[in-house]
Each structure stands twice: as structure tokens, then as C-alpha cells.
């Protein structure tokens, strides 16, 4: 007696049923961890050994090597300010709206101290006490 086996062709299939689940899981992860940078001013930061983590949503004042100043309240995109009176009015507005907000000074290491001093004096005048000087990790 001859037994004949029927052989069915085997097709290679990649299971894609769970792909959408994985994709949405990754989306959720990225959505929760994403924080959009409000200031992308190109500066060479000074280096330091001592460093503390700055608060999330802190207001940023960026000073470039050519003494250009940009400011962000930590929520909106930073804007260039050429007029010091305007800078002070923006500072006042931030202090009034968010009294406990930390201020980050993101100053280029090549910038002359006088530009930092201008911002620093303005901060003191407006009773800003929580300041962080942005640095890079040394070594």
C-alpha cells in the first residue's frame, strides 16, 4: 500500500498584529518624556565641577558672545531683545505671573562681564532671588 502525504506549501509570515500596539506604546512614552527646548541660542557655556539640576520650566536669559540678549519665560520660545527697558518689562511680567520661578542665566563664556552685570542688576531690582548660572560639566 502506498501512502501519499499531501504537502501544503509553508509560507513565511511576520506577525504584524501587535505592531500597532507596540507603536502606540512607544508614542505614549515619547509623549510623556518630550520637553521642547524653548531656547536654542548658540552659546559656549563655561565649565564647572559643581553643578545642580535646574528646575523644569525655568525662565531663561541667554547672553551671546556679541552681547545679544534673548529671553524666555520657560513656556514660550525665547525672543531677542535689543531694548533694555523692554527686557525689564518682560522680567517684571514673568515675576508677576510666576513669583517663584527660577531664572537661568545662559551666558557665553566669552561675553564681557558687563553684559552679565546688566542682567544681574535688573534681576536684583526686580527681587529675583532664585538664579542658576548655566554651565557645562568640567572634565
Amino acid at each position: 500500500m502506498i501512502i501519499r502525504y499531501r504537502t501544503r506549501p509553508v509560507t513565511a509570515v511576520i506577525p504584524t498584529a501587535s505592531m500597532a500596539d507596540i507603536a502606540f506604546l512607544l508614542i505614549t512614552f515619547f509623549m510623556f518624556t518630550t520637553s521642547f527646548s524653548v531656547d536654542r541660542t548658540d552659546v559656549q557655556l563655561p565649565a564647572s565641577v559643581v553643578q545642580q539640576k535646574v528646575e523644569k520650566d525655568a525662565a531663561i536669559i541667554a547672553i551671546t558672545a556679541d552681547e545679544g540678549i534673548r529671553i524666555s519665560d520657560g513656556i514660550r520660545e525665547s525672543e531677542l531683545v535689543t531694548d533694555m527697558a523692554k527686557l525689564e518689562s518682560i522680567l517684571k511680567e514673568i515675576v508677576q505671573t510666576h513669583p517663584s520661578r527660577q531664572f537661568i542665566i545662559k551666558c557665553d563664556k566669552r561675553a564681557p562681564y558687563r553684559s552679565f552685570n546688566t542682567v544681574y542688576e535688573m534681576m536684583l531690582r526686580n527681587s529675583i532671588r532664585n538664579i542658576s548660572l548655566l554651565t557645562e560639566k568640567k572634565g
Partner: protein
Amino acid sequence: MKSRVSLRGKLTSEIPTSSMADIAFLLITFFMVTTVFTAIHGIDYGLPKKEMSSNIKPQESVYIHLKASGEITLDFVPVSSMEQLASYIKGKMEQTQGRKPVILRTDPEVPYGVTVEVLDVLKQLDIQNISIPTQTDIELWKDYFRD
């Protein structure tokens, strides 16, 4: 004559999901490209409240002056390196149980990076009472800042 229409092939309602994975991966790509994971760090410079602040004279403190010429003086004496500056301040702090305030004065033309370098040295020595006078303060107290 009655005509009968039989609905053998039932119509099922379906949400088209074939493009869902494409949309999901498109969103992933967007978030992956825009995500910034780096936490930003800096040197904390907390200032006392106005009512808690007091005026300190250079004579009553450790007085550091970063001059426009590139010279650094410590209590009116020039220092050659950051190590020398650190060891001097460390000695002073040991003598006074760390109570002596430090004044860090910088001339307007000095690069900001130098100020941060000195501030970092002071922070490494765990000095709590650091004062950075503004140019207005220096003008007001010019009799004390004579060097």
C-alpha cells in the same frame, strides 16, 4: 407574486486599521526627532531676601578682584593660579570656621567664563556666603573697593 430577497452575505461594519501602524510610526518618528532628554545643569546662585541682606566691606571679608588686565588679586595681593586661590581661601575659612564672607568683584571687560571659574572654586570649597557686587554697588562703595 411575492419576491424574496435574501441577504446571505451579511454586511459587517469595520474600522479600517490597515494604516494605523503607518500613522503610529510616523508619530514615533516625530517624537524621537524632537525629544530632548538632557537635563540642564548649572551653578545655583541663590540670593538672600532684601531684609536678610547686609553690607559687607572688603576689609571684613575675603576679597577677590578679577581685573581687566587678566590679573587676579586676593585680599589685594596678586595670585598666580586657581590652586593658590583655593588654598588661601581654604586656610582663611578654617581660621574663621567658614564664617568669613567672600566678595567676588569682576571688572566689566573680563570674560564671564573667568567669573564662573572662580565661583566654581568657591562652590567646591562649600562657601555659603558669596557676594557678587554689581557695578552700581561698586560705584556706591568705591571707597571700600580701592585697589
